């Protein structure tokens, strides 16, 4: 039995006007364990706190109950006061007799009676409180950013600028991501490379940023502040320290039949390649799956022509192990596969393309050197049709349930650019809804219609019918005139839905970060913690969390950086001591608790357990208190009752129930 002190606050007249505080004090003295009780006009004042501290010392109190306002208001105040007097702060409980009593009840007798019961419940609870120690864990002052697109680059730059070292891990041979594939950006139509390249260069040159390209995260262990990550640096077959980036190897490579990923497979590249001219690092890689040297052993031309002697066929994959305090996921997106949407004839006609392919066609460095032409016969198109929502907003199994968000704007952009550069080309857009929330976005879309004469038709397309003469017949609805229209087109552009980069599922699993049914990473709170994963120390940047355009991605990237910096700025992390704890004697290692834990805080260890003299190895649950947030889901799930929550234990809550129902 604790020696308990009860302190009843008047809160001026806020409490005392409806609750007979003297009566509460009197009743408190009757409770078992209570050795001291008093009241005071303002317990939260300096003088009030001094009274508590004095009583703790004089009466050697082991527990304190303050009957006052909501614990959300002053619990911390009273805990700190108690701590100063030498009492463990978690031995303090609050009975909320203001918000939950005096303010809502008018009848003094009734309110006093309730206040007494609330006091009794708090006393019963504090009787079972145990001193808790807020834990500490160290913080490694280095961040990892997974993904080197605009999101990853921006996050890395912001963290680096704050003075912390950052590593970027990018799986392709260059940073730059999807944005580097774009020609122009909405709503200002500035060239994508012109605004992205300086950022890439800045990231590359920053003393605090270290870039691993052609690399992937392979293993993650540890927890917030103290992650250990294995990074596989795939063999580039080119020595980065020797290569001068002259490009002769790529020119001379005789094997130029590999589909060029950067140009979405619209043309071919050499087996030794840098994805694009502004690549960072400007060091080629050998694609071993397509290289003649690696396939047949004969060739070796690139090594012969390399003056720097940088080509190294013997190079091996390298595993780098590094410690990080924070990890930012910025894995980005891809376009969905259109195999299931063949009513649009994507696989049957070369002149049916996706929007990202159009970006490459419009780009001066693209497969057609920036000339708008049909890929089937190289002719300039006269009629172009854009189809919106291909695979977005689908309730069926073929597509995605969500709106891809960027398509309405980039289609308006494409339409406008084409009408501007090729005024004789007619552009028709079939749309379901035009969604343009964003600064200057709707104005942009209206300009496409009003100034550039883009023909927007409300209605979806049912089928694209290739004609024997190479034209495409587009059969669609015009809902506003209630007609089915057949439109002859030279090219059809599909606004294919975007989806998270397929590798994200694997990364999320390694990080124990949760993902939703669409494979987007889940936020800790949809509104209030949108850039944090529920898993502590993991932050989200860019489209990996949900569809976004560039401005939004950059803002979110900055926000993720700030959250990571906030973590890295701390030397130690104090952990919430109200965490779950498994009773090793009762645990049967069934894993049910780990299944419900949203934070991946529960793992299993085989331990030598001394069960009343029987010593045996058992698989038991172990809670990582640095990760546990104290929700208690596991405590209820545990079939053997081994799991309990410190600070809100089963016995404590039952004691409160008993006191209330007494």
């Amino acid at each position, binding site marked *: 039995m604790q020696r308990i002190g009860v302190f009843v606050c008047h809160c001026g007249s806020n409490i005392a006007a409806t609750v007979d505080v003297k009566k509460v004090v009197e009743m408190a003295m009757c409770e078992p364990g209570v050795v001291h009780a008093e009241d005071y006009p303002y317990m939260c004042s300096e003088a009030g706190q001094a009274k508590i501290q004095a009583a703790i010392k004089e009466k050697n109190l082991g527990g304190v109950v303050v009957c006052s306002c909501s614990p959300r208001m002053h619990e911390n105040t009273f805990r700190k006061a108690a701590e100063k007097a030498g009492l463990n702060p978690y031995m303090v409980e609050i009975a909320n007799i203001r918000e939950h009593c005096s303010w809502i009840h008018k009848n003094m007798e009734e309110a006093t009676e309730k206040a007494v019961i609330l006091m009794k419940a708090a006393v019963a609870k504090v009787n079972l409180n145990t001193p808790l120690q807020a834990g500490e864990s160290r913080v490694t002052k280095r961040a990892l950013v997974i993904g080197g697109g605009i999101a990853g680059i921006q996050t890395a730059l912001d963290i680096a600028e704050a003075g912390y070292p950052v590593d970027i891990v990018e799986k392709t041979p260059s940073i730059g991501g999807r944005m580097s594939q774009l020609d122009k950006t909405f709503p200002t139509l500035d060239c994508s490379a012109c605004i992205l390249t300086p950022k890439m260069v800045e990231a590359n040159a920053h003393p605090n940023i270290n870039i691993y390209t052609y690399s992937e995260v392979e293993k993650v262990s540890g927890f917030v502040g103290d992650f250990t990550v294995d990074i596989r640096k795939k063999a580039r077959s080119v020595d980065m320290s020797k290569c001068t980036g002259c490009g002769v190897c790529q020119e001379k490579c005789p094997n130029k039949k590999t589909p060029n990923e950067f140009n979405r497979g619209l043309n071919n590249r050499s087996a030794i390649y840098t994805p694009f001219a502004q690549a960072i690092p400007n060091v080629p890689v050998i694609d071993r799956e397509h290289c003649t040297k690696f396939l047949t052993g004969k060739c070796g031309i690139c090594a012969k022509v390399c003056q720097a002697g940088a080509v190294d066929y013997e190079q091996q994959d390298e595993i780098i192990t590094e410690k990080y305090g924070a990890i930012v996921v910025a894995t980005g997106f891809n376009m969905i596969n259109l*195999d*299931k*949407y*063949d*009513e649009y*004839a994507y*696989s*049957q006609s070369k002149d049916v393309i996706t929007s990202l392919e159009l970006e490459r066609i419009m780009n001066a460095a693209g497969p057609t050197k920036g000339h708008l032409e049909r890929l089937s016969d190289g002719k300039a198109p006269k009629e172009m049709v854009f189809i919106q929502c291909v695979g977005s907003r689908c309730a069926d*199994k073929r597509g995605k349930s969500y709106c891809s968000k960027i398509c309405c704007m980039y289609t308006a952009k494409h339409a406008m650019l084409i009408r501007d550069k090729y005024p004789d080309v007619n552009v028709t857009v079939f749309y379901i809804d035009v969604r343009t929330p964003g600064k200057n976005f709707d104005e942009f879309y209206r300009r496409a219609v009003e100034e550039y004469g883009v023909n927007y038709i409300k209605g979806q397309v049912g*089928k*694209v*019918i*290739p*004609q*024997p*003469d190479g034209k495409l017949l587009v059969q669609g609805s015009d809902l506003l005139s209630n007609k089915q229209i057949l439109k002859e087109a030279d090219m059809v552009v599909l606004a294919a839905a975007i989806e998270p980069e397929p590798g994200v599922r694997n990364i999320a699993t390694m990080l124990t970060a949760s993902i939703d049914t669409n494979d987007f990473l889940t936020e800790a709170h949809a509104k209030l913690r949108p850039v944090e994963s529920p898993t502590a120390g993991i932050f989200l940047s860019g489209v990996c969390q949900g569809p976004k355009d560039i401005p939004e991605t950059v803002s979110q990237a900055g926000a993720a950086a700030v959250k990571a910096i906030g973590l890295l700025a701390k030397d130690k992390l104090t952990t919430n001591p109200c965490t779950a704890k498994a009773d090793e004697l009762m645990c049967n290692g069934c894993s049910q608790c780990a299944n419900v834990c949203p934070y991946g805080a529960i793992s299993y260890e085989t331990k030598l357990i001394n069960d009343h003299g029987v010593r045996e190895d058992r698989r038991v649950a172990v809670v990582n208190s640095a990760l546990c947030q104290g929700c208690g889901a596991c405590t209820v799930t545990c079939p053997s009752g081994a799991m309990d929550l410190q600070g809100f234990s089963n016995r404590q809550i039952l004691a409160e129930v008993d006191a209330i129902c007494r």
Partner: protein
Amino acid sequence: MKYSYYPGCTLKNKAQALDMYARASASVLGFELEEVSEWQCCGGVYPLGSDEIATKLSSVRVLNEAKKKDQALVTLCSACHHVIKRVNDDMKNVPDIYQKANRYLQLEEDYRGETNVYHFLEVLRDQIGFDKLKEKVVKPLTGKKIGAYYGCLLLRPSSILAFDNPENPKILEDFIRAIGAEPVIYPYRNECCGGYISLKEKDMSKNMCEKITQSAEGFGADMLITACPLCMYNLNKTESKKIPVYYFTELLAEALGLKED
């Protein structure tokens, strides 16, 4: 390998060629089609209404006959295939329908969609294999450019029929390659021929078939193949038609050297 076989009404009458060549080819390819005894007409169209039970019973009887023999059920006519496969799906997955249907039929043991329903083409693809078929071809149709006409009944709804990609099917094209000819892909191969509408609205189906045959001819097809007697009838009704239409089984028999002419 023995399969229960459901020919359906038309194959016993106007479309005997479809049936005859299929049986002959089957024996060469090493499987037997055992006609279900006392089968009844499937009705030609699948009754869509959720409260339609009686119209589905003839299909259930056939399915149950195959179940009793522990055989898969093979169909040939697109319409029969469509109806029986969908009814089978109902008997497997729609409680209201399987409960009521079983209550009507009073079978010894309730039928719950146990029978596998295959189209003859599916047997060729999944059981025999087009590679195997190719080996058995003695008179390849080399140089023939053939357009496959699927129509609607074989492909849709794909969630239930699970026959092929409904927008870009390839089973008939693979078949055409296996018998040594060259497939011609044209966009109208999965568009409807008009179906039963040709009884009363002859112009409608004519227009549709016109588009189909013209598109196929435009892409260079010498002939069309189909699995459906009604498609065959409708395609043959177009006025400008020059392109001949065959049942796929006829060309199969020809390639296997079973056709005398």
